[in-house]
């Protein structure tokens, strides 16, 4: 088997594996997984930087109970966050509210990525 054909065979194997990872069914999303996910996005109000998912202080448990109650009542993610923010202030969300200056936070890495691509692409024998 030549080098080229062995490489092609390997590429095929990789494509098949990637396909299997994408196509295989993942665990279905339930209200519990939604609650667990939301809990990782809210900061424990009386800790320095733990999420309520990780902390066991009384304030975290109260927030978790509230998230569970609201998710079971069918509220949307935005409604949950708004309620928590009303009670504890904007610092309680682990990501700043979208819009305005927060775009810098997300555009910054993208801009740097672009710079990186430009720098590498310009590497050619002069």
């Amino acid at each position: 088997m030549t080098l080229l054909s062995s490489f092609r065979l390997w590429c095929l194997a990789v494509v098949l594996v990637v396909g299997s990872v994408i196509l295989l069914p993942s665990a279905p999303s339930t209200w519990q997984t939604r609650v667990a996910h939301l809990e990782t996005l809210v900061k424990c109000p009386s800790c320095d930087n733990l999420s309520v998912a990780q902390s066991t202080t009384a304030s975290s448990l109260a927030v978790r109970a509230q998230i569970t109650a609201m998710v079971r009542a069918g509220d949307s993610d935005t409604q949950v966050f708004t309620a928590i923010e009303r009670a504890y202030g904007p610092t309680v969300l682990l990501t700043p509210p979208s819009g305005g200056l927060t775009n810098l936070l997300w555009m910054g890495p993208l801009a740097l990525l672009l710079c990186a691509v430009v720098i590498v692409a310009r590497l050619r024998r002069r």
Partner: protein
Amino acid sequence: MILSWIGRIGLSIGFLSAVLGAVNQLLSARRGRRSWALPAALASLTGIAIAVGAMQVALITHNFSLAYVAENNATFTPLLYSITGMWSALEGSLLLWSLILGLLVVAVVVYYRRQRQDQVVSYATMVLFIVAGFFLLLMVGPADPFLLNPAHVLQGAGPNALLQDNPLVAIHPPLLYAGFVGFTVPFAFAMAMLLSGRVHEQWPIEQRRWTVLAWGSLSVGIVLGSWWSYQVLGWGGFWGWDPVENAALLPWLTATAYIHSVVVQDRRGLFRVWNLSLAVGTFSLTVLGTFFTRSGVLQSVHAFSSSTLGPVLIGFFGLSLVSGLGLIAWRGDELRTVVGVDSPFSREGIFVMNNVLFVGFAFVVLLGTVFPLLYQAINGVQVTVGTPYFAAVAGPGSIVLLGLMGLAPLVSWRRFDATTIWRRARVTAWTCVASVVVLELAGVRHWAVLLVVFLGVAAAGSALRTLANNVTSARRRQAPWSVLRSPSTAGMVVHLGVVILAVGIVVSTSYTTRTEVTLSPNQRTVVGGHTIGFYGFGKRTTTLDSQTLVNVTVDGARLQPAITTFSGRSQAVGTPAISSNLLRDVYLTFDAVGQGGATSGAQVQSDVPVGAVVLGVTIEPLLSWLWIGGLIIGLGSALTLGRRRSSDEVNG
């Protein structure tokens, strides 16, 4: 009283010697005056040692006439925690920093004593004296560790509860500081090369082993810090993207880029601007780190108390970065090279990608850390930037870096040679695919885990292949130990450590499960395949602390999570218990008790029956791989001492 004056005199001697040394080195560089570097360095170190000695005596003898001792020590503080009390708070931490820096200056001056009249060595020593003088000036002025206590106290407050819980307090800060301080040397020599105009010389190459040791020390320091957090903070995590943690990560990122980039300068004389910039950047970031830790501007569980040092420290950061960048801009012309990088996928090209990724990574972490301050300055509202953001940006970056680790040892210098790469990569490539298939069949579905395993096996495969080649060459030369002299041995061992660490991180964060179980005495339950049994409470009181223990068995092994209250401090802290093996960690916390148990210090939950306990059980697979990976990284860095010097290289 006397100790206070001895300490202050020591600091003044240290400071004055550093200033005089800097002036002397400047004159030596510009006017060829005789260099008094060694006497000045020794005098400065003596002054610092006197101050450190005075503080240690005060701490060990529990001398509360010093305010610092009254705040960080008590009569019942054990010897170990009295000694480490020196760096438990702000002013004393500067003493430790200065001590390590003083030792380093002496070491550098001794190492270069034969070249002490050389202009580059003089300028570099001048910069070292200036930095040492700065930190000593902080202690002579605003951050005086020897302030007298106006009140006459019979008992001190004792160290902070979390700083007397674990002997790692004796290892983690010194290792971290050794790393930070170590990067003053590349900075000093970079500035010296720029000031003298001799930018084409090989000083960074010659200093590589010391730079790698500083990097290794910082790496192990950071990993130990994570291990310490893991053991005491009670949530089973090891990294919180806390501002102070980020402050230690930033110079580590640029330092990693630096130690790789210097390899290219060694081989082909390229990357001079990169290397000078990375040296300047790394040092500036260590100063920025001291700012985050000591200014009180960002909320952090690791920060020292806030002080007036903020503006001074950030000013020094600005000064060092601006002067470094300015000098680079000024000398830009002389930094031109005739040759360039030939292809993005040559070895040099991969190293450019490496540099760009690490620096970009550092920029993004810095952006996230400082963003709340920017937001507040502009919008007047306080916000938080936490783990979701950092994980979202660090994850993809780390994955690409892992891929580069796998690719770099396989590619050739100067050109992109596909056939050679594939020939070298074939075995590893098929092993990667096989590993992923095996995991998928075993039920692993998280795409992140599969991707990291794929790339990790690739990186490990490349590293092992290189090591195997080194061993074969060594055997052929009939000198098996000469494998250590090969340039790539130490680096490949470190890469293996990084792969183990990366796999540990991604598997534990993807598959951690946390449950709370309520158990009555002598009751058992099964959580995630492990049998947890509760056998009642216990109490243990020593002079230092008092603990309410919970007697638990995990699969038969006995553990005792507890709530600890330290004498002298009212805060009660949870003390987790961990059952650890190669496959998983079972992490237990004493979360709450039933009614009537308020005296234990634990939270009381009304719906829990009397005498019962609520335990937090966190099961984290492969968590011990983080510490094993960290250990291998440390060992690999130490192996660099065996590497043959660049001057001995025959064929490169």
